[in-house]
C-alpha cells in the first residue's frame, strides 16, 4: 500500500540535497567551530556562511542570527529571557490564545513567577483584533508574542500592523515564524520584528536545528548556559552538519519556489474540498477561507466523525494526517486552538482534522487521500446509521 504523508506542519521529509550536505559535513567536518586550528576553522567557516544565508532570508544582519535547537528553544529563550532582562520596565506580556505550546508553556512559567500575561481572544476564523491588542497594551508591557502563522488552522496574523503599533512602544515584538518561514516573504525591518523563531525541520531540513533572530540593539542573556559559542548568546558546541543542512534547505526556498509551492498547495486544497463536496461529505473549514493564510494547512471539521477515529482509520489505510496532540498515555487532548475559535462547539473541536502539504506532496498523494477518506467516511457513516 502506498503511504500518503499529509502532516507536513508536524514535520517534513528531509530533501535529497539536504541529506547529501549533512552526510558530507558529518564525514568531513568534525572540528569544533570554537577552536583556532584549521580543522576547527573550516567548521567555523561553514557556520558563518550559513548564518549569512539565514540572515538574508529575513532581511536581518548576520550578527542577529543565533543558532538554536529549533523553534521550541527559540521561543523559550526569546520569551523567558526578555521577561527576565526587562523586569525593571514592567511585568506585563501579551500573547494570543492560539500560540504553540512552545510559547504558551513559557507564558505559564512566567505567570508562576510573578508576571502577568494577557491572552488575546480570536474569532471563529482564528483572527485576533488589532483593537483588542491596542486595548491590552499598557505602559508596563514588555513583550508581545504573536505567531506569524498558526500551525493548526493556518491563520496568518497581521504582523506588519502589529509591528507598526509597537514601533513606538517599549514592548519587544516576538513572532514564532516556524510555520510561515517556508512560504512567506519575511522582512524583520519592514515589519519591526525584534525577535523571531524558526525551525529547520519544517522546511525539509534536519530536526533539532533552527535559529532565533534577535535584533542587534536588544540585549538578552543566553538561555542555555555553558561555553561562549554564538557570541555568548547560546552555549553548546554547534551541530555543523545540521546547520549546513539547514542552509541548503533555506537556499532552495527562492521567491519563485515559494510561489510555486503556494500555487500547488492551493490547487490541492481546491481539489480536496471539491471532492469532499462531490462525495457528500459534510464538513466546514476551520480557519481562513481566503488569503492571507498559510497555504499548506487545511483544517476541516468532518461532521459526526471523531478526530481520533478518523485518524486511526486513515493510518490503517496508510494515510498520515493530524488531529491534535496526544497526552502522555496516547489519547488525544482537545485542541486549544479550536477550543479558542469554537468555545461553544465541542463537537467541532473533537471532529476536526488537519491536512498539511509539503514540497514532496504530489497530485497522486491527494488522489489517494481522497479515495481513502471517502471510503473510511462512508464506512463510519454506515456504522453510525446501523
Amino acid at each position, binding site marked *: 500500500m502506498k503511504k500518503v504523508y499529509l502532516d507536513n506542519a508536524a514535520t517534513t521529509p528531509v530533501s535529497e540535497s539536504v541529506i547529501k550536505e549533512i552526510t558530507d559535513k558529518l564525514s568531513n567536518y568534525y572540528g569544533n567551530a570554537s577552536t583556532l586550528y584549521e580543522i576547527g576553522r573550516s567548521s567555523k567557516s561553514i557556520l558563518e556562511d550559513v548564518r549569512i544565508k539565514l540572515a538574508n532570508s529575513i532581511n536581518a544582519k548576520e550578527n542577529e542570527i543565533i543558532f538554536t535547537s529549533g523553534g521550541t528553544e527559540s521561543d523559550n529563550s526569546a520569551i523567558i529571557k526578555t521577561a527576565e532582562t526587562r523586569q525593571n520596565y514592567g511585568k506585563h506580556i501579551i500573547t494570543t490564545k492560539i500560540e504553540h505550546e512552545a510559547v504558551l508553556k513559557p507564558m505559564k512559567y512566567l505567570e508562576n513567577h510573578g508576571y502577568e500575561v494577557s491572552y488575546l481572544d480570536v474569532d471563529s476564523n482564528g483572527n485576533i483584533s488589532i483593537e483588542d491588542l491596542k486595548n491590552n497594551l499598557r505602559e508596563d508591557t514588555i513583550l508581545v508574542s504573536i505567531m506569524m502563522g498558526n500551525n493548526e488552522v493556518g491563520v496568518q496574523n497581521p504582523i506588519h500592523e502589529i509591528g507598526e503599533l509597537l514601533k513606538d512602544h517599549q514592548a519587544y515584538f516576538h513572532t514564532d515564524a516556524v510555520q510561515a518561514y517556508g512560504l512567506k516573504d519575511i522582512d524583520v525591518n519592514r515589519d519591526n520584528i525584534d525577535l523571531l523563531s524558526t525551525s529547520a525541520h519544517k522546511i525539509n531540513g534536519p530536526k533539532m536545528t533552527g535559529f532565533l533572530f534577535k535584533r542587534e540593539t536588544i540585549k538578552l542573556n543566553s538561555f542555555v548556559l555553558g561555553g561562549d559559542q554564538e557570541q555568548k548568546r547560546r552555549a553548546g558546541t554547534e551541530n555543523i552538519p545540521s546547520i549546513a543542512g539547514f542552509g541548503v534547505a533555506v537556499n532552495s526556498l527562492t521567491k519563485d519556489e515559494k510561489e510555486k509551492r503556494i500555487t500547488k498547495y492551493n490547487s490541492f486544497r481546491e481539489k480536496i474540498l471539491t471532492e469532499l463536496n462531490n462525495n457528500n461529505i459534510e464538513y466546514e473549514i476551520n480557519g481562513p477561507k481566503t488569503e492571507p493564510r498559510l497555504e499548506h494547512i487545511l483544517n476541516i471539521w468532518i461532521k459526526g466523525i471523531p478526530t*481520533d*477515529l478518523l485518524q*486511526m*482509520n486513515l*493510518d*490503517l489505510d496508510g494515510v498520515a494526517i493530524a488531529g491534535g496532540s*496526544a*497526552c*502522555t*498515555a*496516547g*489519547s*488525544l487532548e482537545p485542541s486549544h486552538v479550536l477550543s479558542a475559535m469554537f468555545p461553544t462547539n465541542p463537537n467541532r473541536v473533537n471532529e476536526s482534522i488537519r491536512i498539511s502539504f509539503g514540497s514532496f506532496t504530489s497530485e497522486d498523494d491527494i488522489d489517494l487521500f481522497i479515495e481513502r477518506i471517502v471510503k473510511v467516511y462512508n*464506512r*463510519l457513516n454506515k*456504522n453510525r446509521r446501523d
Partner: protein
Amino acid sequence: MKDNSKTRVVVGMSGGVDSSVSAYLLKQQGYDVVGVFMKNWDDTDENGVCTATEDFKDVAHVANEIGIPYYSVNFEKEYWDRVFTYFLDEYKRGRTPNPDVICNTEIKYKAFLEYALDLGADYIAMGHYAKLERDEYGHNHLLRAVDDNKDQTYFLSQLSAKQLDKVIFPIGGMTKPEVRQIAKEAGLYTADKKDSMGICFIGENNFKEFLSNYLPAKPGKMMTFDGEIKGDHTGLMYYTIGQRKGLGIGGDGNDNLPWFVVGKDLSKNILYVGKGYHNEHLYADYLDATGASWINNINRGEEFHCTAKFRYRQKDSGVTVKLNDDNKVTVTFDDPVRSITPGQAVVFYDGDECLGTATIDAAYKNNKQLQYV
C-alpha cells in the same frame, strides 16, 4: 494454514502480559492485528503524569515487537457514566459492588467493541482467560478457561451471546505459566511484568483513602447482634460481609476466636460483628438476586439445578435457580453458603459452561432475611 490476513482483530491491550500474548498469538496466526489501549480513568497528577502513561509505553513496546499498529482511546467518560457511577451508588446503598463485571459488559465488550468495529474490526480480543464455543445453531457458549486459578468467566458472565459474536479468546486454552512462557520465548517486553491487582481505577492504592475522596464516611458503632458494643467503625462502606481484617477487636480471653463482619444496618449506621469464621450469621440457605442476564436465551424451565459462584475464585456450589418476574431470581443452595454479599454477582454454571449472572440483593436463613445492608 487458513488465510486470516483479511480478518482484522482489534486487541484491547492493557500493557500486561496476558493481552500482549493474545496480540502476539493472533499475529502469529496471520490475522490483521491492531492494538488499542483503553484509557478509562484519569489519574493525572500535578505534573501531568498518569499511571496509564507507563502502561501505554509497555503497549507501544510490545506492539513494535510484534509488528502491529497501536493506538490509545479514551473511554473515561463512558467509564465514569456507566461503571463508576454505579460503583458509588452501590456503596451508598451499603453494598459491595463488582465493577469488573460491569466494566466488561459496558466498556470492554461494548464501548470498546463499537470502537473496534469502527476501526474495521471483524473481531475483538483481550487478555481474558475464558473459552468460547460456537455451536451448529449459532449459539455462543462461554466456557471456563483451562487454568482454574485464572478463569475469568465470573467477570464475563454478564455478556450476551450477541456481544460474544465478535470475540476471540486467544489464551483461554492455556495456563498462566504457559502464557508467560510464550511471552518469554517471543521475547516480549512485558514477559516478566507483574500482574495488576485490584480494581482497575484504584490500582494498588489504598482503597479506603480512594473511596473517601468520593463518598463521605460516616463513623458509627460496631456491635454484636446481642447489643454489646465492640468499638467504632470508620464508615459502613469500608466493610464487607465476612471480612476479618481491620476490625481491631482483640480476643475476649474466653476462646480467643477471631472477629468477623457478620452484618450491617445502613439506616442505624451499625456494623455487626461476630466471633468465629463459622459464625452462624454468615451462613445463608438462599438468596434473591436482580438483573438476571443469560448469555443464551435457552429455555431451562422455571426452575433448574446448576452450580454457582458468589464471588470470584470461589469453588462452585450446587444451587436451584427459580426464575421470577422482572428478571429476578431466587437461588437456593444445596448446602448453606458463607458470606453471601449484596452487590456481588452470583454466576451460574452448567459444568464448564457459564450460563449467566444476577446481582445479589439479599440473603436468607430459615426464611429470615440476614441483616446485611
